[in-house]
């Protein structure tokens, strides 16, 4: 059959649909991006709207008919001593927890760089706290630091006098059990991430440094640490974001008390939204907190980005 007739047998081309006119790479990701946009954008727009209203479910009106309050919620939040304290306190907890976790993780990871008997079993034991349900972990610390709990019992033994100290009711000490519970549970995650980072450092560089007479400390600070810095920063970023959302430990241990001395930003928002149903006010708080979190993340991300460059 001549070539001409073959061409004639082909079906006439239909006009291209809008979708097929898109470049393939865009057409492939577009459906998922549209879904993501709906999942993210719609709630964000609702939060944005609520933050500009004074809506409470107790008003018995639908949220979309709420009275517009302009920027009063943001204004009130800036002067809300409890909110500002909760943000600062949460940042303090993040700074302490993440620093301690990082230091412990680095020390532990160094111990696990070389092969030694029972190493794998030891790793499994170390990461066990991470597997515990956070509420159970918090409950354990609640009992540990109870008036007649093991911590006081231990102190009584050491000091040779009965100690029944109310750790969780003391404004100066109540944060300590919270920080300890958080560090105990999440150092293993940091340890795994740091260990991965250290193990990915080319061994030949490190060994060469040692062979050329560098001390182990010098080799660590000059070679291992700089090369694993991107992994460490990612680990810090992940834990900082997670710790910023700290809730279960505080809820179980102190419920934000005594007074509001251990109230984190999540506790503040939980109370506002689900105890007092101040949805508009808490929506505004959520947006302000989002701004703070993005700022903190950017501060951590910049050096990470620079190290990649």
């Amino acid at each position: 059959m001549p070539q001409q007739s073959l061409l004639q047998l082909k079906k006439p081309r239909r006009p291209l649909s809008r979708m097929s006119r898109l470049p393939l790479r865009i057409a492939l990701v577009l459906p998922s991006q549209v879904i993501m946009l709906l999942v993210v954008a719609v709630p964000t727009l609702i939060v944005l709207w609520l933050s500009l209203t004074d809506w409470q479910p107790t008003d018995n009106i639908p949220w979309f008919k709420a009275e517009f309050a302009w920027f009063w919620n943001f204004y009130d939040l800036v002067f809300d001593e409890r909110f500002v304290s909760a943000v600062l306190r949460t940042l303090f907890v993040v700074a302490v927890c993440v620093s301690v976790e990082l230091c412990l993780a680095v020390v532990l990871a160094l111990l696990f760089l070389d092969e030694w008997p029972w190493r794998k079993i030891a790793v499994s034991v170390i990461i066990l706290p991470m597997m515990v349900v956070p509420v159970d972990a918090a409950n354990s610390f609640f009992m540990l630091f109870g008036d007649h709990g093991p911590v006081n019992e231990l102190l009584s033994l050491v000091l040779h006098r009965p100690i029944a100290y109310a750790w969780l009711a003391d404004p100066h000490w109540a944060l300590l059990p919270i920080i300890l519970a958080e560090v105990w549970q999440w150092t293993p995650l940091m340890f795994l991430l740091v260990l991965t980072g250290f193990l990915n450092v080319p061994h030949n560089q490190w060994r060469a440094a040692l062979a050329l007479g560098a001390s182990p400390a010098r080799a660590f600070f000059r070679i291992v640490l700089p090369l694993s810095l991107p992994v460490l920063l990612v680990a810090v970023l992940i834990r900082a974001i997670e710790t910023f959302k700290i809730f279960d430990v505080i809820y179980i241990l102190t419920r934000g008390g005594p007074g509001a001395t251990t109230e984190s930003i999540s506790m503040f928002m939980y109370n506002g939204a689900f105890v007092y149903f101040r949805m508009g006010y808490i929506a505004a708080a959520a947006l302000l907190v989002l701004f703070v979190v993005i700022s903190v993340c950017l501060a951590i991300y910049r050096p990470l980005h620079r190290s990649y460059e």
Partner: protein
Amino acid sequence: MQNDPETPYTPGIDRRSFLKSAAAGTAAFAAGVSLLSLARPAKAAGSLADVQTDAAKAAKELAKGRAVTLRILEPSGSLGNIKPVAERWTADTGINVEYIEVPLGEINQKVLLEAVSKAGSFDIALPASFGIPDLAESGILVDLDQLAAKYEPEGYQDSIIYKTANYYKGNFYGYETDGDAYVMFYRQDWINDPEERKRYADKYGKELKVPDTWEELDQQLAFFHRPESGRYGGALFRSQYFIAWEWWVRFHAKGFFPFTDDLAPQINNEAGVKALEELAAASKYLYPGARSNGLFENFEGYGKGDSYANIGWGGTQKYLNGDKSGVKGKLTYGPTPGGIVKGTLVRTPYFNWGWNYVVSSLSKEPEIAYLFTLYAVSPALSTIAVRDPGGYFDPFRDEHYKDPDIIKLYSKEFLDVHEASMRGSIPDLYLKGQGEYFDVLRVNVQAADIGQKTAKQALDDTARDWDRISRRIGRKGQTVQWRFLKGLYPQEARSNLT
């Protein structure tokens, strides 16, 4: 300040005369509440004696030919009170009852969430009474005026002692089913100890007895506080959820309402500051768990027998009068102490919790649900509910104080004080946003107690935040409700408070 310590003390009301005068004093209070009923539709014609039978019959008729199940949202721990009643209801009507149990402190939230989600997951709920204003405003509660007019027989509520929380802005929203007035507990054996009596008389120049005023109580807490020999002054609450309630009574006992008629907070006046300073000073004489213990730990701790005084409700007494208690038979009781106002002893016992049977506006069977509440709160059935030794419900009807099982459970001496306290109780702050007002107060009172703020600073901060809350919620509506609520304070309190 009215409560001038220099003003000569007129022994207006000691504990004994308090018990007598409470009955008379609350006649006016009852009359105040009954004013509400003037504006309500006329009562149904049924007889009070047959109320539970009539309610069951009416429900059976309404459910005829259909399989109806009522779902009750109840705070964990109250099943012991509800179940015996619900089982009789099912036997009488053929209508099943399902229970949805939620944690004690979360039930009001769950009911409010229902207002948002419109899920219609329950027909009846038992929220804490102080949350009724918020729940009523959310639209989740049925205004029961019409149903009560249809089914409630004349005199049905007459023997319910405390009814203030049943109403909001003049409308009827639910039946109080728990007599939660604050009562004081003291070690009778310590008071009667001749050596202690002598030492006390030598030290303070007066007789050791159940205290009439907070000042006297604080003195006794200090007197009995000997931690070196394992004795403590008291087990009064200093944990966050409870601490503000004690301050509330101390403040009222100094002769002031929390707001002026125009809803300006006056909690930060001289009396309020003094009340908070005294509360914080008394904390030195409490047992070690005071700042961390919740309700159950409190009465279990006091039950060990190493503290002189405690504060609590009927549930506290059920435990302390039980076999697990180390102080059974060693206690005496008193109303919450008062204060000297214009030379007269003024007591302001306080109803600060309670559970109310309410009907969900999303219920498909609101009428049957209402009939269940009428049935459950009837004199006969509520007596069965209150008899449960493990549940929360404490006596709240005249009939309960005469029931031999209830007398055995609580003891006659306790019930006398409890009944008098119920009759003379000042109400909780039944305003929209009650939780917010009280949360601010709690946080600041505790901050002062632990020394983070001065009493003045804590109460100034509270007053400022209360103003903000009132402004946000709507000062006009809040003022109307406050004036209404103020009118429901017992006559004796009203005439002595400014």
